[in-house]
């Protein structure tokens, strides 16, 4: 029934359309635009604004119906432009304008306001409303990021529906009723949602505005270019808006495959770091006095070429290691991979910071699925990081699957997660104890019986990853191995850093080559020819590189947009190597210890492609020129290669993309043209079937269990806002980090004689800190949770065992 074609006649023209649609959508799809305020294709209709009234012929004559709530049916006859319809629309507009302040000249929406536009198109002339208008206190801040002007609000319920239905944090609601109805938050509770910015984008008028954007620009001054967000790994479609060479905002763009138009606030407001005064603008070289001095590009490049060549000559190429590459484009990553392998000649290269998963699992898991598989899932197994914190738009997709589409959701996590309220089954556990939980779940024992039964109902989508930094990566691999064999299963192994998948696909892992080839795999003839030979041995991963640094075997380190000192759970001692060069946007904890720092271009300042967690390759675009003399990563590396006597011959990002399409098996044919024209939503690699030399099949391993006798084990996980560079350099989101604290089960707290706010000393072999206690009933007894990388917070490394003392 639902997929049958039905005939509808709109304004005298017959159309055949799929039967499961509301009239407003069917009309739009067949070329008739019906004006609307409250209807939104991604949310349930509410029929509130009444702007979309049209006439439909029926058994009892012609009826005026709202097209956003009326389903189409066969032989439906619709009129959208009759006098009655026009009169009704004019009437609604007049009603909406009656109480509207008409302060368009000072409104951020002015120039892109549907109310303004529709008044021009359908509206009445002058106001007949001579009574006193409704008055409310002018814009009130309802969160750190969002301002609300209730006088402008037309009560379309887009913001309230979004927070309730889509993001699951109904903190903004209608208050009062009738003519006094207004949007507001609870008296004492701000609109503290990770997704609040979406309501600003959804608001059809200027009632909700974003404080980072208020009064910054008028729409007609903006340069707008489509791109792909690189904050998390979902590859969300966005448009970047800039004026006078400055990025001013991002808007979400509806992509059926990924974000459905939504963005997290970190993504939306995270652009501020690009405009920071702290951005590096010239190369810096550490002088004899130990201080950085500005240097010219050629000085700095020559120096680095000389130093790296000397290390290779004196200690062999394996004395140089490279870290990073997961924050840039595929083209940059490829350049780094080629540079390390063909110019330096070292295989010690890793784009993950010892906090991720087996690169082969991420890049080439057999049975890997798509985000879109969530739309059809009957059962979802989520055993990974708290998606709300680390994978915000994926969180929205899972929420939709569980809430709107009725999938059963099974969550396994040591602590409460943002999706618990939608979980059919939720299992907590003690980090280190995961293997036992998995084996019991697999066997369907005891409390796991019903969940195991649900997992026998396909299609199953399993999202697997590390729930925290202290958990063994082998556990996720075991979960993936189990999930792969479930009925009709799609497995999505997830890690956090945005272009990790692209970086791995470009070979930025000790055991991978570009195009999803394991070192030694066949089928890399083009790569071999282009590179003039292929490595035969895997190099060090990040942890081994750290050890190499400590032991003195690694003498030179190249950091490409990486901050291992802050970002690696166990840190990295950058004072030991003879020479450290960093390519970065800022002086970070790591780059500030380098000998030479090159200023790099950031997001929106360069062109290229990125690959999301599904393997979807999408375009990022250049919108602004970037600060000072900053350059693309690939071009810095290419310049270095020439100065080191082994020129890589990389001419432009697009040329690199062509080289990738030629040499990297899984990326065969993936040119920019392909993803611009044939696959505007991005192309999932490999686009040419059977062109992935590696197909990784994980196994369930008992090594995923690391039981400890310690009284307390540490659960350490990332939060959306932390002490990372985006937050440090973005004034709007920088303030939002929750801060370091020790979260404890009430029983543990009682045993220790502490309560909320009391200080405890938490210590591991890697570090210690005095932290305020937060009681958290979601934790298992014996688990202490400390959010990772908080401003001023301690680092405990990846140790499971910690000690806790009351202070």
């Amino acid at each position, binding site marked *: 029934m639902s997929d049958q074609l039905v005939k509808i006649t709109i304004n005298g023209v017959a159309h055949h359309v799929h039967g499961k649609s509301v009239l407003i959508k069917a009309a739009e799809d067949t070329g008739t635009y019906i004006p609307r305020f409250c209807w939104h294709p991604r949310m349930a209709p509410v029929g509130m604004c009444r*702007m979309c009234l049209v006439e439909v012929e029926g058994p009892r004559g012609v009826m005026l119906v709202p097209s956003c*709530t009326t*389903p189409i049916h066969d032989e439906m006859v619709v009129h959208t432009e009759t006098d009655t319809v026009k009169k009704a629309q004019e*009437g609604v507009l007049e*009603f909406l304008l009656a109480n509207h302040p008409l302060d368009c000249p000072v409104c951020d929406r002015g120039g892109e306001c549907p109310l303004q536009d529709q008044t021009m198109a359908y509206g009445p002339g002058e106001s007949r409303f001579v*009574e006193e208008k409704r008055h409310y206190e002018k814009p009130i801040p309802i969160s750190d990021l969002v301002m609300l002007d209730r006088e402008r609000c037309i009560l379309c319920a887009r913001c309230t529906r979004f927070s309730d239905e889509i993001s699951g944090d109904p903190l903004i609601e209608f208050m009062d009723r009738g003519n006094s109805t207004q949007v507001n938050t609870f008296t004492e509770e701000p609109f503290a949602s990770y997704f609040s910015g979406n309501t600003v984008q959804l608001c059809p008028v200027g009632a909700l505005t974003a404080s980072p954007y208020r009064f910054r620009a008028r729409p007609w001054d903006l340069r707008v270019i489509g791109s792909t967000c690189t904050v998390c790994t979902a590859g969300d479609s966005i448009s970047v808006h800039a004026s006078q060479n400055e990025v001013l905002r991002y808007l979400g763009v509806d992509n059926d495959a990924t974000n459905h138009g939504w963005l997290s606030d970190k993504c939306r407001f995270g652009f501020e770091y690009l405009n920071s005064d702290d951005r590096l603008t010239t190369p810096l070289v550490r002088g004899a006095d130990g201080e950085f001095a500005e240097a010219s590009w050629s000085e700095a490049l020559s120096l680095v070429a000389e130093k790296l060549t000397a290390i290779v000559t004196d200690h062999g190429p394996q004395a140089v290691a490279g870290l990073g590459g997961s924050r840039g484009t595929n083209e940059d990553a490829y350049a780094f991979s080629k540079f390390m392998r063909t110019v330096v000649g070292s295989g010690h290269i890793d784009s993950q910071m010892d906090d991720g998963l087996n690169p082969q699992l991420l890049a080439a898991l057999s049975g890997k699925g798509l985000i879109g598989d969530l739309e059809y899932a009957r059962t979802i197994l989520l055993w990974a990081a708290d998606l709300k914190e680390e994978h915000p738009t994926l969180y929205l997709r899972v929420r939709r699957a569980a809430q709107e589409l009725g999938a059963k959701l099974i969550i396994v996590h040591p602590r409460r997660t943002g999706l618990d309220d939608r979980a059919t089954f939720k299992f907590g556990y003690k980090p280190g104890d995961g293997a036992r939980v998995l084996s019991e779940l697999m066997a369907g024992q005891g409390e796991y019986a019903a969940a195991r039964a649900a997992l026998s109902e396909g299609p199953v989508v399993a999202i697997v990853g590390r729930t925290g930094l202290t958990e063994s990566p082998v556990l996720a691999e075991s979960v993936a191995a189990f999930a792969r064999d479930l009925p009709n299963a799609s497995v999505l192994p997830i890690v956090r850093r945005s272009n990790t998948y692209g970086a791995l696909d470009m070979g930025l892992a000790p055991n991978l080559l570009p195009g999803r080839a394991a070192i030694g795999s066949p089928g890399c003839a083009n790569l071999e020819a282009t590179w003039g030979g292929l490595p035969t041995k895997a190099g060090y991963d990040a942890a081994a590189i750290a050890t190499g640094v400590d032991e003195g075997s690694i003498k030179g380190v190249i950091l490409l947009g990486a901050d291992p000192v802050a970002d690696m759970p166990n840190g990295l001692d950058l004072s030991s190597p003879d020479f450290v060069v960093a390519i970065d946007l800022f002086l970070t904890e790591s780059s500030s210890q380098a000998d030479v720092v090159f200023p790099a271009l950031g997001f929106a300042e360069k062109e290229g492609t990125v690959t999301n967690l599904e393997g979807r390759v999408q375009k990022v675009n250049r919108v602004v020129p970037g600060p000072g003399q900053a350059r693309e990563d690939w071009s810095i590396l290419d310049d270095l290669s020439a100065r080191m006597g082994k020129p890589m011959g990389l001419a432009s990002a697009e040329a690199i993309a062509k080289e990738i399409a030629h040499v990297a098996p899984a990326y065969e044919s993936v040119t920019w043209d392909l993803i611009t024209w044939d696959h505007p939503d991005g192309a999932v690699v490999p686009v040419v079937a059977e062109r992935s030399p590696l197909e990784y099949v994980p196994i369930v391993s008992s090594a995923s269990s690391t039981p400890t006798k310690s009284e307390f084990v540490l659960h350490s996980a990332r939060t959306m806002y932390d002490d990372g560079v985006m937050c440090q350099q973005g004034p709007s989101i920088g303030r939002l980090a929750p801060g370091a604290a020790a979260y404890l089960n009430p029983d543990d707290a009682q045993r220790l004689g502490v309560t909320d706010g009391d200080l405890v000393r938490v210590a591991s072999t890697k570090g210690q800190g005095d932290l305020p206690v937060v009681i958290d009933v979601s934790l298992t007894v014996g688990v202490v949770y400390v959010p990772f990388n908080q401003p001023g917070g301690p680092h405990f490394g990846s140790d499971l065992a910690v000690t806790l003392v009351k202070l």
Partner: protein
Amino acid sequence: MVYPLVVTKRMMEHPADSHTMKRYEATGGYVAARQSVGQTREELVELVKASGLLGRGGAAFSAGLKWSFLAPARPAYLVVNGDESEPGTFKDRQLMERDPHQIVEGMIIAAKANEVHDSFVYIRGEYPKPARRLQQAVADAYAKGYLGKGIFGTDYDLELTVHLGAGAYICGEETALLNSLEGRRGEPRIKPPYFPAAKGLYMKPTIVNNIETISNLPHIINQGSEWFAGLSDSADTGTFMMSISGHVNKPGNYELPHGLTWREVIYDVAGGIRNGNELKAWVPGGASAPWFVPELHLDRPVTKEACAADGSMLGSGAIIVMDHTTDMVGAAERLVAFFAEESCGQCTPCREGTTWLDMILQRVLNGAGRDADIDLLLDVADNISVGLGWPPKQTTICPLGPSAVSPVMSLVRHFRDEVEAHIASAPHSGGQGVAVSIRGIA
């Protein structure tokens, strides 16, 4: 004149204790419920269909037919509408206060007929006394095993919960009521789903019936559908309760047969107009009904059909009578103000339009009317209820918005001269007018 009584019979004959279990059982109570628990859904639905009982909540839809539409999914729910808030209406209050067991018994019958095990009565918050009485009756019925697990010794379970509203007329609209009962704002739901019988409480099949409708059920079971249908010559069977208020000598509730004339109702039943005054107009069926005037309607029959033919309705059976001293602009304003204040606020035309209409009327009353105001009133009304026809064309989710148009239309149709007189006497007549702010919701 003595008319046959059905739902008010017991309370008339036993005023002191008609509300008690003892009296109720002594006068044949719970016999019908006991019997119907042994009957099938089909038997009960057919019986009620055959009785011709129409809903007494205002829409006058066949109760039996509604029951037969109940979707097969289970659980299903029964919700009885005791929100009675339409100005002029106070009949359900009397039924709840004076004969609460009649409602409990009616609910047992309706529940059994619809295979429902969970039922609710939603009583407006301003009715604590009726709620207390009904709650006592419910408690007594639980104690006797007429409610709860295995009622009347059968294996049929039935729970009944008395739920108190909190001051919102719109919760009388059945889908708003269901939202309210779900712990949400009492906002009417969009269509589809078209009927609660398909998707109602918690989106499960739900029967919503009015208190008076339910009160008739024990009598239909006991005395048969033919007897009930035979009480009336109209398509509307049985008796019906009228709440009469305003400028009459004997305001009150009256259980009446169908088909009297308005003259009989106003002058015989309600004792005529106070102080021997002249009848000016009356509202025939609750605040949303277009007004009747003596010149046109006094000798017309009081039936659903005749009212519809005359461009109005019997609605909830509330007649509000106005004598010649009444300022009709004031009366219209008061009716419009009610809808403005009770609008849930979802639909633009209702939320903005009803308030605007009220502001204009208040301005006219306050001596700041303008010549353009009559046309403006009509045009704003037209934007709420396109074409200003009867029954109204709806631009809104529920009929409340268009309801506010009725008093304005009636005012302009029958008493345009009074509006003009107000405007003419205004100091600013013909000018720009002075804005007044609307009475706030206190």
